[in-house]
């Protein structure tokens, strides 16, 4: 598979580096408006570089698959052009920033012969996969309530290399929304994943601690379409955490027991990193393939989702996350925004 990277920001660079570890995948091209980003791509051996992704799509030096990691507002057009050009498409979440655009994408995907997947990476966290397995086996009885929490820095995190938060994050026309569109997208998708069917919003309530025109905290209550399973969501961008701290928690409450992610993700992230890092070191010594990013249970999910996407292309099977998932998640987000108009935190 010959891959073209569209967008080399934070997520694009991560996907690029992950691709370099996937067998039978060759990254042959990359596009980004930043010359600095292209320079980084060149350093890892990418030969065909473009400052405009349209050129990558039209030039397509043997590219058959594109990975789109552009700012949210550019997802729709880039997906549309990529699908129309016949590429397999993997796009970072959110699939698009409006339900209308998502519906158009669903239609485009139906017409396309290529594979399409949205990056709902949290479904690929080992602990989440295990929780789903436990619930599906009936080990906690009937699923009654799902609670999901994710509180961290969001776009306001900065790493060892200080860079400003990209300006599009401050523009609601470009980000499509605040924390609900960012972290909320993930956890609403997880609710749908655990419930396994359609859902609707009962209540949503937003916070604006940063005085921005979009929310930085939200409480959302949702329910499965048959009203049998309730979900409680607590998300926020306002918590200052230092990597590798990661404040995420999922609990599935059934009538015969419960399962919590606290018991299924590493309790000590440092020990986990040392343990998994040592395993990779040993793999390297005996010349076996390493498990990329396994030292970070969260970041590993990004590698696993890409691996799954490429496996689907190879085996001509459908990716587990479809354009419909992208659409349904955005429908719930839009519903939550509508519900919230009268329920703001004081």
């Amino acid at each position, binding site marked *: 598979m010959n891959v073209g990277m569209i967008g080399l920001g*934070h*997520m694009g*660079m*991560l996907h690029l*580096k*992950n691709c*370099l*570890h996937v067998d039978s995948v060759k990254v042959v091209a990359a596009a980004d408006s930043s010359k*600095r980003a292209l*320079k*980084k791509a060149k*350093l890892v051996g990418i030969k065909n570089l473009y400052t405009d992704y349209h050129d990558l799509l039209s030039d397509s030096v043997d590219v058959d698959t594109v990975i789109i990691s552009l700012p949210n507002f550019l997802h729709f057009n880039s997906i549309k052009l990529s699908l129309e050009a016949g590429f397999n498409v993997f796009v970072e979440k959110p699939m698009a920033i409006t339900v209308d655009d998502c519906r158009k994408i669903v239609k485009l995907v139906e017409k396309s012969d290529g594979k399409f997947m949205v990056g709902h990476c949290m479904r690929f966290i080992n602990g989440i996969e295990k929780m789903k397995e436990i619930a599906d086996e009936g080990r906690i009885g009937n699923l009654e309530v799902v609670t999901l929490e994710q509180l961290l820095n969001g776009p*306001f*995190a*900065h*790493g*060892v*290399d*200080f*860079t*400003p*938060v990209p300006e599009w994050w*401050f523009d609601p026309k470009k980000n499509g929304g605040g924390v609900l569109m960012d972290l909320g997208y993930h956890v609403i998708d997880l609710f749908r994943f655990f419930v396994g069917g359609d859902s609707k919003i009962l209540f949503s309530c937003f916070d604006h*601690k*940063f*005085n*921005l025109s979009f929310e930085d905290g939200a409480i959302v209550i949702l329910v499965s379409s048959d009203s049998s399973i309730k979900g409680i969501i607590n998300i926020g961008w306002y918590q*200052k955490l230092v*990597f590798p701290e990661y404040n995420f928690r999922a609990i599935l409450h059934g009538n015969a027991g419960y399962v919590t992610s606290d018991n299924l993700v590493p309790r000590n992230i440092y020990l986990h990193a040392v343990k998994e*890092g040592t395993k*990779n*070191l040993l793999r*390297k010594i005996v010349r076996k393939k*390493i498990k*990329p*990013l396994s*030292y*970070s249970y969260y*970041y590993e999910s990004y*590698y696993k989702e890409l691996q799954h996407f490429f496996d689907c292309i190879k085996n001509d099977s459908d990716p587990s996350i479809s354009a419909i998932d992208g659409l349904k998640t955005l429908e719930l987000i839009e519903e939550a925004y509508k519900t919230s108009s009268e329920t703001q935190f004081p």
Partner: protein
Amino acid sequence: MGDVVGLVRTHSSDEDIKNSIEKALNLIDFKPKCAVKSVDIKANLCYYWDATTGYTTDPRVVAGIIDCIRERYGSDINIRVVEADATAMRTKHAFLMLGYEKLAEEKNVELFNLSKDEIHEENVHVNGRGIVFQIPQSLLKSDLFINVPKLKIMRDTKITCALKNIFGCIASPRKIVYHPILNEAIVGINKILHPDLTIVDGLVALGRFPIQLGLIMISKDQFSIDWIASQIMGFNPSKIKFLKIAMKEKLGNLEGIRTSGENVITFKKIFPKENFFSSKRWWDIQLGLFNLYREVVNDVVPPILEKDKS
């Protein structure tokens, strides 16, 4: 020559804060150098985390200062709250996100981005090394320049308080270029910019974690403030590199430093001091081991840990 450092305990109501600032001004018997028509207040808005995290100056402290200044020198004086863009922070967002736009509206003061000022380059020699700074010119013209730093520990310099907050006045956003010579750069910029008064916002201080310290600290001498601040934060000030350089460069002098008001011990006792696991050494060890692992195993690095080598 060092100077008196006033320490006043405060509670968190707006009225308490204002009264404590007034009390602090009286403690050091503050008198401006000239008739006050214009005032610049340099807050510490290093990032988008609000005052309760201990990172940034509480707008209520700035509000208290504005009220005191107006009561003392007249209600018609021009007051600006100033900050410059930083490597990862944009002042226009920080003013909004940290409550300064609301403050400016309530108190009728100007918010000013020093990065947009008329800029002159100045070369200063520190420790035999020439350093070039971009200096916002309007800052040199104010009748009263008040520095309002936080009380924080910092991996690179151990402490950050009065002298380090002036480093934030450098107009160029990419201040990260000074980080390899950060101690010298802190001293260098303070050789050019001289606040008339420093009022430390110690309502919430930042050690290993944020702590409600309830402290207002004041002095006309920045070096004296940092000397006492180091003690509160559990460091031996004579081992703080930029303070040592400041003494060598005649920017600070131990002689004359004394405290007035509350006792240093009161605050020192509750400050969450640095330990090995919050120190630069531990951070460097972790990053060093991680980079070694990456080199040997060729594993993927999350962008948050990626250093830009371009």
